[in-house]
């Protein structure tokens, strides 16, 4: 019995020393998880999450101090990406912190600007150009739309303008959303007593164009999303 105890004691000591050495020798600099989280954040540095920038928020998530739903500019996409990374369930955006808005850029009314440089100091990404007592202007391509310049302006000459849709940034709509539109339209048909119940729930946007199509079609047993594929 004593041999066994001795053997295990020695083993424990040796392995413990090995582990201790490995921990020192292969130490990872920085926080790899926080880096990964930081890479998923939109880097607007707007502070809407309650932390002074994206990096501190990433560190707080990595440390388990902050929830993943505190980034309004990133919105649903960011929350989903964070949930995937951390292996947790996505949750809706914390409504107290703001809501996901369409992207905007700051614009300075140069007629009104007094050249106080306060907005320049507030901009986290140096996207405002100007000098004391000379008017300032926003570098559109660099502006992240964080709105941090709006509050400091003493003459309220900064406006957040929605981005103009551009051809090469245009996106095809999600066909799913069209189906939802189609379902709305089908209500119009369902309200027509002549068409009866069959039209209910299927209709389609073209049902507006040719309601006869709806009637002549064969009856369908299930709605479009009854397969649960969207769940």
């Amino acid at each position: 019995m004593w041999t066994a105890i001795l053997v295990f004691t020695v083993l424990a000591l040796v392995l413990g020393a090995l582990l201790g050495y490995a921990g020192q020798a292969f130490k990872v600099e920085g926080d790899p998880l926080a880096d990964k989280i930081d890479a998923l954040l939109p880097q607007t540095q707007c502070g809407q999450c309650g932390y002074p920038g994206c990096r501190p928020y990433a560190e707080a998530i990595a440390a388990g101090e902050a929830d993943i739903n505190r980034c309004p500019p990133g919105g649903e996409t960011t929350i989903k990406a964070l949930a995937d990374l951390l292996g947790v369930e996505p949750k809706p955006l914390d409504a107290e912190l703001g809501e996901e808005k369409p992207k905007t850029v700051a614009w300075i009314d140069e007629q009104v600007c007094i050249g106080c440089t306060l907005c320049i100091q507030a901009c986290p990404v140096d996207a405002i150009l100007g000098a004391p007592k000379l008017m300032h202007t926003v570098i559109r391509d660099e502006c992240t739309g964080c709105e941090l310049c709006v509050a400091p302006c003493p003459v309220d000459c900064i406006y957040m303008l929605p981005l103009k849709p551009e051809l090469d940034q245009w996106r095809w709509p999600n066909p799913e959303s069209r189906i939802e539109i189609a379902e709305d339209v089908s209500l119009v048909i369902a309200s027509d007593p002549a068409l009866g119940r069959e039209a209910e729930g299927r209709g389609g946007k073209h049902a507006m164009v040719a309601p006869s199509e709806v009637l002549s079609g064969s009856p369908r047993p299930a709605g479009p999303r009854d397969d649960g594929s969207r769940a």
Partner: protein
Amino acid sequence: MSERILHRFPGGLHPEQHKSESNGTPIRRAALPERLILPLRQHIGQAAKPVVAVGERVLRNQRLAQAEGYVSAPVHAPTSGMILAIEEHAVPHPSGLSAPCIVLQPDGLDEGMRAFEPWPDFCAVSPLLLRERVREAGIVGLGGAVFPSAVKLAGTPGTPIHTVVLNGAECEPYISCDDRLMRERADEVLRGGQILMHVVSAERCLVGVEDNKPEAIAALREAARLLGDARIEIVAVPTIYPSGGEKQLIHVMTGERISRETRTTERGFLGQNVGTAVAIYRAVVHGEPLTRRIVTVTGSGMAQPGNWDVPLGMLACDLIEQAGGYRPDVARLILGGPMMGFAMPSDEVPVTKAANCLLALASRDAPADPLPMPCIRCGKCAEACPVELQPQQLLWDARAGDFERAEKRDSLFECIECGICSAVCPSHIPLVQYFRYAKTEIWQRERDKDKASQAKVRFDVRNARIEREKREREAMLARKRAQLAAQKATAEPAPGEGEAAPVDDKQRAIREAMERARARKAAIQGQAEDPPVDKA
């Protein structure tokens, strides 16, 4: 010549042809409309930059806009006239959005100028100069991809081109512009092929034409016989959609299967549409830039289907009016074919270099999209997919928003958007719409990511700068303090009395500036009819 052994690509479809509506009559030349709208971007790549001013009179073939960057193409005037404006105008795009265009008002004189020196003996001209000519003439792929041809002619460094493939398959239903072009200008098609062979030093030229165009094949064979060039071979390929896909056509004619990641030029093939070959011939031998194209005007919603030689920039509505107008029961106007084209929200858009077909369908041929049913995983889409993807799996990814998986595992970007999967789906799921959506969504995310990393770099640099300035200020203060201490040690310092005054001055200056700004703002808002957008 021994009979060529043809091959079969995976999948494919036999849609109804509908070619005979439009391919029976010769190409007609469209009369000049009242105005031409020439988009600055009719090609893949960067928009061209205007080199003419509003109010200027221009001549036919004059360059209106120059290429910007390597992947770009210039725009030339299709006729003489006055530049009315350079402004935003609706362009043929599924979004219905506007883009910068040059508006040209023809003066009816159609006065031309010589844009380039004609080179009838092109064999004596160096390939480099010929490629430059193709670029200067604004030639892009006229099969619909509108990729600048000069860039494609540059090929892949280190890989010589052995075969020029002229694509006359024209596999989409309804479209017959290439068919008519090959029948009527077979000689120009083949001469274009000869120029291409000379430019890339290829050994042979294969002209692939689907066997549903026997007249075109006969015309090409006759032209080839007259030309007496043994390097040119006309290949009749079976009519299966999408044999007009570049890789599909190469596979059918040579048996060479070019993998998803590889470009055709990397394997020694240079594919060009037959219309592009004619444009190259005209640019080199006659010194003409690309200012016109053949457009098929067809469909059950058109009064008189046919093919038209159209000046670029002509509005679709003007062209359709000349072609006899719509039928009363027209329901939908599509740019391109029924498989790959898109419905246009308006016909007040110009014909561009990409416009091969204006397809108007009567309501009986344009049935309402049936409401999609759940995917039953029958696998028909996978069987029919010509690039051997798993569309049902991609659909799952796109619906779940799992774009990473769609891109990395299920090869979304290999999809050529041929539309077969949507056509064969028994549940009427618009699969290709999901893939188009997923692709643009992925591009958007990439742009967002680029923007985020750019913002991060700027944020980090700014923080570093602030930190450095703080350190420098502290260092300076420390130096000053040390100096003062040293001075104090030597002499009694004078009591500081001017310290309070500058602060007061500054405060007053700020107050005054704010007063002035407020006054100015009030004045401006009083003038303006509607003030700028409210603060969000």
